[in-house]
């Protein structure tokens, strides 16, 4: 019989408290005896900001095989969160399993994958780029990096995209196009009124916000524009929610309604007490991620969420302390959680 979620989460929390002094300290500060908990919710959550100011890892630095960083912020590279992994196998297996289920259902075993972003060699510390390269490698039809990642030196290679889309249309094979929201805005701006018809059954995965890298666009409007530009159904535009600090991802089942994989939970908590809020109420996202074996099994994000029918609604960022008077707000200065929820820096096209 498989171990329960709670048991695994508590075991991981104990393992992490044993090997990460900071987590043991946080447990003490919160008055939690980590050796005796038997519910995941009782394990203190590590604020995403902690990844920016210290190492959150159970292993020594030299054992890291991959180091992912949150994207830059208004205060520059200094404030980037770091998530180190000594082995990406767990991450890869989880991302692939849930990604295939949520993005590729009804699609052939392999299909063309195109990323409106730079190649892995240009964004080596981006967990998003790592994941998309994985998708291309494991789910995609054979293609070179140049044919898959079509942004080079900040410029879209539209002719390559055109070629791949045309070939897929001829073969009648659906495609997966993946991009950040800001890349999609730039793509739409570049396209103007033109369209790139994708084969029937194709999907577009969009992730992240705008972070000042493009004009801000209402998500529903962006979704419609993307559907128009690619001549696909609006429902075929699937949002993904992930963070560099996590190893699991969440996908939309319906617009604005996300679901977790079986190995992760999103629990809305009261922003002050950090206790779970009653079902249906809005809280900030406490994310319990069993794939975060070597870092933090419980992470406190800055996004507002609400549980709805087996999933959760993503309701935007928890507003930082408002700048009452002219005092600077954390939001203004650090955009820290924003950087947390937007992984890596796939570059501005």
């Amino acid at each position, binding site marked *: 019989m498989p171990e329960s979620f709670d048991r695994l989460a508590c075991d991981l929390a104990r393992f992490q408290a044993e090997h990460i002094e900071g987590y043991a300290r946080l447990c003490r500060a*919160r008055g939690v005896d980590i050796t005796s908990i038997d519910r995941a919710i009782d394990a203190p959550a590590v604020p995403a900001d*902690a990844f920016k*100011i210290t190492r959150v890892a159970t292993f020594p630095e030299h054992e890291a095989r991959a180091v992912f960083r949150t994207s830059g912020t208004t205060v520059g590279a200094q404030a980037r969160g770091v998530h180190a992994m000594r082995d990406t196998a767990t991450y890869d297996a989880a991302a692939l399993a849930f990604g295939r289920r949520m993005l590729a259902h009804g699609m052939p075993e392999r299909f063309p994958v195109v990323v409106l972003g730079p190649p892995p060699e240009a964004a080596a510390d981006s967990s998003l780029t790592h994941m998309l390269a994985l998708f291309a490698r494991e789910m995609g039809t054979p293609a070179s990096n140049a044919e898959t990642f079509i942004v080079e030196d900040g410029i879209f290679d539209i002719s390559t995209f055109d070629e791949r889309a045309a070939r897929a249309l001829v073969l009648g094979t659906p495609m997966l196009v993946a991009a950040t929201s800001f890349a999609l805005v730039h793509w739409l701006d570049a396209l103007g009124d033109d369209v790139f018809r994708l084969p029937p059954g194709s999907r577009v995965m969009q992730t992240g916000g705008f972070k000042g890298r493009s004009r801000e666009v209402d998500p529903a409007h962006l979704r419609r524009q993307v559907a128009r530009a690619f001549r696909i159904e609006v429902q075929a535009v699937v949002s993904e929610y992930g963070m560099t600090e996590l190893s699991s991802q969440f996908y939309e089942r319906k617009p604005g309604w996300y679901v977790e994989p079986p190995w992760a939970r999103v629990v809305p908590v009261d*922003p002050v007490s950090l206790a779970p809020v009653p079902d249906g109420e809005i809280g900030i996202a406490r994310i319990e991620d069993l794939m975060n074996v070597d870092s933090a099994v419980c992470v406190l994000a800055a996004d507002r969420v609400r549980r709805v029918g087996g999933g959760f609604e993503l309701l935007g960022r*928890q507003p930082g302390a408002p700048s009452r*008077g*002219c*005092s600077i707000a954390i939001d203004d*200065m650090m955009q820290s959680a924003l950087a947390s929820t937007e992984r890596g820096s796939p570059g501005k096209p």
Partner: protein
Amino acid sequence: MRTAEERAHDVMRLVEAARRLAEDAAIAHELTRSTGLSPEGVERALSRHLETRPSRAEIDALVRYAGNAERVLVVLSANVFVAALRAIAIGRAASDHVVVRPSRREPIFARALIEAASDPAIALEPHIGVETIDSGEIHVYGRDETVAFTRAHARPGVRVRGHGAGMGVAWISRSAALDHSARRLADDVIAFDQRGCLSPRIALVEGDYERGVAFAHCMHAALSDVAQMVPRGVLTEAERAEAVRWSDALSFATGALHAGDFGTVGIAPSGAPLLVPPPGRHLHIAPAPNIEAARAMLAPMDGAIVTVGSDDPGRAELFAPPHARIAELGAMQRPPFDGPVDRRDP
């Protein structure tokens, strides 16, 4: 057109009105309700931070800064309620037609000041829109979004002087007496419960991690002590939530964290990026081996720094951004009455 002497006289009229208000117990009571500060916090703001005794040289400098405008709309922000005096004074120095739009959250002080000054050149218009101003200047104070909105909606030909969000930084030099410096800095931290753009949020301590820890202990003691005399007021839920996140992050990162009703003092690990704490009497202490290191640590946030306070202002000047005001510890929240507190390009 008024002479400089006449403009200075008009400014003095406002200052005198402010002086009368500082003695008014009724307004202090109202301000406690509107600002969320404790009664002692309001009293301290009125007695220490309201500029009731500016020098003539300061007023002359303020008049020179203000220049001349056909009319001025002053859009005020909420929390540093005494800032209304300086803002209206600059407007009045510049123009004979001043309209003031107070903050919706804290309209009390501006209204009382204008009534007390009884200057026909100054009118209170709580609901005036920036787009209705067809000439002259708009002086806007507050959130960056408010400044950006004003710029976007001001009519062509109307000059917008905007003063957005900012913060203060303290520099504790190698020669500083830590306990004394902490007590001086605590005065700067508690003013307006740290919601002002001059409020220190980060203290760089010259030296190693241990010296930073020692200063954190001193700050803890100083903030605890001063909270006995001037308790912290009411924090908003958003402020409390941010404080929880910040102190948990610091707890994780370092053992040196002091938290209580007085606020929170945390010290980041050596070399860690600076994390700006939320308002509410929270201080992030970071050791910096030398001036060069301090400059490098602050560089990414240069544009947000409005003031640098130090036990050694001369050395602080070596790394402070050019626009920042330099102050002695304990005087960061009492800059000369010589123009806007924020000297970044408006």
